[in-house]
């Protein structure tokens, strides 16, 4: 499968990566090479095979419904590039 620049641009938007045009073109080539490589999986007969859920062979462990965490806003905000009044901030969103 070959990817063109437009497809890469759409992917970059989905992934929130602001890449310059030249890089998008370059990436289109690289990603195409990669997809061509992985396409070989099409050769494998996987009829009747269930996709692997996990290598860990156990049931999902559960925890008790108790409050054991949270209550430390300083820690949670400590690395925030722009925290104000106990909130994280982002450019204003208009809905």
């Amino acid at each position: 499968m070959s990817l063109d620049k437009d497809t890469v641009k759409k992917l970059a938007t989905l992934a929130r990566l602001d890449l310059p045009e030249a890089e998008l073109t370059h990436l289109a080539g690289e990603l195409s090479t990669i997809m061509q490589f992985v396409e070989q999986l099409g050769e494998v007969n996987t009829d009747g095979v269930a996709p692997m859920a996990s290598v860990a062979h156990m049931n999902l462990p559960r925890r008790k419904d108790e409050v054991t965490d949270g209550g430390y806003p300083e820690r949670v905000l400590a690395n925030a590039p722009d925290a104000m009044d106990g909130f994280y901030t982002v450019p204003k969103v208009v809905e």
Partner: protein
Amino acid sequence: MSELTNLTIADARAKLAKGEISAVELTEAHIQAMEAARGLNAFVTETPDLALERAREADAAQKKGEAGILSGIPLGIKDLFATEGVRTTASSKILENFVPPYESTISANLKKAGAVMLGKTSLDEFAMGSSNMTSAFGPVISPWKRKSNSNAQLVPGGSSGGSASAVSARIAMGATGTDTGGSIRQPASFCGIVGFKPTYGRCSRWGTIAFASSLDQAGPMTRTVKDAALMLQAMAGHDPKDSTSANIALPDFAAAMTGDIRGLKIGIPKEYRPDGLSAEISKLWDDGIEMLKAAGATPVEISLPHTKYALATYYIVAPAECSSNLARYDGVRYGMRVEGKTLDELYAKTRAAGFGQEVRRRILIGTYVLSAGYYDAYYTKAQKVRALIAEDFRKAFETVDAILTPTAPSAAFGLGETNDDPVAMWLNDVFTVPASLAGLPGISVPTGLSSEGLPLGLQLLGRPFDEETVLKVAGVLESAAGFKATPNGVEI
């Protein structure tokens, strides 16, 4: 000084216990080594003061008879493990100044065992790579040099290149690595040390920066198999904070190394000897087979028919998971932030500036294979092939107890010697990736040198949660191979 930095963990423990050396002495020797070897760029952050503090605590504990199993042992911690109060970067600009307010379970376990942290070792950015050339803080250099050209800088392998380089150069007695497709085993092979990836679920992933959640696994990188067993003992164990952490008891890993492998069957997978496999590697492998045979094990030819599809499978599954795992790096709650006029601009500018090329490539591939219309063709298909690969191993383990293969298809290559083909670099992981996909324990043991005098390693794989057999066979292989070479400039 070289006396102290050449000790194995096992020997150092003995000396510390007897009071022949102090933890502070031991740590000071390694701090000096770390400073002297800065040219290797193995560390992202050095923590000498913290190290000495812990060394002092270790000495005090030793006196009280309360020494943990790694008390006073100076280690490198891969900069993928969150260390409380100490910068943790994943070798990425996007986390350049991130100081975690928490400690990963792995580094906490090592701390509890009394270990000393010398610093945070470098890695390929976000653990994506096989050369440690993609670190945002500069490539790591291997302490090994080719016979024919002592000027060419060689890669230590990756992604745990900083750890491999540090251990091999005798800066640290051991180091933690993580292995997703081979990132412990391959650099161990390139640097002539032991690298052990335990069964998926043996080591907790809590506080370990995630790359590909269904594959990531922490493990020890040391100079001997015994040391790896000791370090794994301290690192591993059930963690209720990690839902994929296995809730089973830890055996005594070191005790499993009885030295006796008589009667064991060692699988030799024919698919790991493709046309084009270097003669050197092929010979290394055959020598290894002979060594195990001489020790009383029986080599058995096995087939793992889906081997050749493992890389393609891995390069769909791992990028898919990483594209999602790395979505949290968005400049809002921590890490680098590039301002934008809108929320989306903030995200897109921050992430483009913060992530390097390889990371961006993998995020895009991951986004693509998960996207509408392609999910079944790629991701679902890959997870099915993965199931087949795991089944290949399960069937093989019905007749054999361990599997022996080469670790890497070549010795370390030079820093400038790679081309633009993104797939070419990935081929370094061709022997390590299948075991990752199946979640099996795998160890690399150095057993020979290339014609250029560079280390070559052999890999042993075992059944899930049978690290004991893997360690047992690895110990025998190690003794038989008698690998004593050290990187240039390091005296034994």
